[in-house]
């Protein structure tokens, strides 16, 4: 099986890179100046963890488990629908980045509406009603029932001059 098509080897390679960076970064951890702490410093565990991880990953990369012929990355992702996945991931990212500016209400309505649209819901009025209804419901429950503060957002403050 080719290296790039082997789930275990590819997975272990990513983790190996992470462990190597982690190992390198662990040298930057300052050591405590308190007496007695030299037995176990802030570096001790990270160092051992990264060495163990590197060892196990290398072991798996060079001595892979025997697997069935069809158990490959190509076979696993063959029929995946990448477009809605990428769009929804992007939408979540946009939601997280715009939350502070737009505030809970506007950001949530837009997120839900766009989410429904990405998943091919074309009844726009229904989508809007569901998005707005759910947002209002959540806002009422959180702010009025549980007394949780939800930020109105910078946009609201700009528009109302607060």
């Amino acid at each position, binding site marked *: 099986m080719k290296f790039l098509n082997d789930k275990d080897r590819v997975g272990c390679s990513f983790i190996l890179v992470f462990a190597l960076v982690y190992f390198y*970064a662990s040298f930057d951890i*300052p050591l405590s100046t308190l007496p007695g702490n030299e037995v176990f410093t802030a570096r001790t*565990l*990270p160092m051992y963890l990264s060495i163990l991880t590197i060892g196990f990953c290398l072991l798996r990369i060079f001595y892979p488990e025997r697997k069935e012929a069809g158990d490959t990355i190509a076979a696993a992702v063959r029929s995946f629908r990448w477009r809605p996945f990428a769009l929804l991931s992007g939408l979540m990212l946009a939601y*997280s980045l715009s939350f502070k500016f737009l505030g809970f209400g506007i950001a949530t309505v837009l997120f839900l509406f766009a989410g429904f649209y990405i998943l091919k*819901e074309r009844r726009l009025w229904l989508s809007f009603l569901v998005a707005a209804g759910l947002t209002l419901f959540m806002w009422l429950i959180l702010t009025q029932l549980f007394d949780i503060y939800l930020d109105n957002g910078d946009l609201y403050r700009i528009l109302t001059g607060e």
Partner: protein
Amino acid sequence: MLDGILQGLDTAFMPINLLLVLVGCFAGTFIGMLPGLGPVSAIALMIPITYGFDPSSGLILMAGVYYGAVFGGSTSAILINAPGVSGAVATAFDGYPMAQRGEAGKALALAAYASFSGGTIGAIFLFVFVPILAKVSLSFQSADYFALMLFGLSAITAFAGKGQVMKAVIMTLLGLMLATVGEDPSGIQRFTFGITDLYDGISFLLLSMATFAIAEALIVILRPEPKQSEDSTPNFKTLGSMKLSKDEIKTIAPTVARSSVLGFFVGILPGAGATIASFLAYGMERNFASLKEKLRFGKGSLIGLAAPETANNAASTGSFVPLLTLGIPGSATTAVMLGALLSYGVQPGPRLYLDHPDVFWSVIISMYLGNIILLVLNLPLIPYISKLLDIPKQFLTPIILFLSLIGVYLVSFNTVDLTMMVVIGVIAVGIRILNFPLAPLLLGFILGGMLEENLRRALLISDGSLEFLWLRPITATIIAVTIVTLLMPLVSAYRERQRNNTTND
């Protein structure tokens, strides 16, 4: 002890707490039915809501949600062959065929009775074992705790399944590494790279929601739409009778008894949990069954449905034992509860039994109340609750994503957490595609802080010597069990290879 139980009864039967169990069971059932939202996500979503509550009430709500979610997961497994939680996968083996032949009502009733019985026997065991274990664990020292945590981590790798052991070990180590991000116990910053949002480390809730709720919802989107064939179309309008005959009850009674005991003890083991318990019980009952009954397994066998349902509920109860007695979460769900307890200022562990008997006992009593509510109130309402499964996926998935995101935001009120969550969620999807298990990562992450703290203390006491690992008999025993647990899968893999080689020769 009696005083504590009375205090617990007082607290559990307060009208507000009874209401919370009721609300928790309903909310849990709803959430548990939804693909992508299991007990972990359901409880995590409750954390911000319970912030204003006292610890007992908060935990009571969470216990109700937990049982409701387990029950909800079984309901969707039976009705549409889509287990809402992994612990309900084995339930679908025989539950769904029963629903297909028009006995959905009977299957749901049987699942509820089996869950109730499993929960009852589990609760009795909990009553008996928890105080004893709590007393024993009072004598535990940091070396013992360190050994116990190693055992917890090794158990999850041992249960990882064929060909997954090494990957589970790597994922556990990855979890431990992520746990070191932030301030260490002596106040030194590690791996924060000057980013203030990382000073407190990565939030457990963020990691669990990203790796379970977000990743699961995204995986559902990635997978192609299943083609709807006529026989797989759910038919809720004809649930059929919910009654079980006397003969049927007689048939399943021994199964329920055996599976409860098995489930409870598997549940106690850190890392094993409801999924392993349900599969073990299913396999065990299949072995015990007569040849005629064996043929019915997978085609709608009553025993095949009762065994996993009983075991997964008993295991859910059992998983509270290490949390309440040692302060060590044995599963992702109890880990979220540990996080919630800590945020209330309550430290779970042997002192909980002595310092907060009201919290300790009221939670145990409420867990049982939750079982009763599920049986008496939820079961008759299933035909109506199951309408939730009719919500189209194009509406459901964005709502699940929104609930997961807002659940994390409401704890930290930090939008950077949301961004981190999305990034971790996408990475988790990649990890799942590569077939690396995520549960060990989460358990490693949870136990990481405690493991380091106890190791540090043990090493400081022993002046840097590793002799603390074998000086005390209890530590040495736990370490020995850990080594055996870790070696067991390797030995069996070696034996299997030898057997295959002999056959080939």
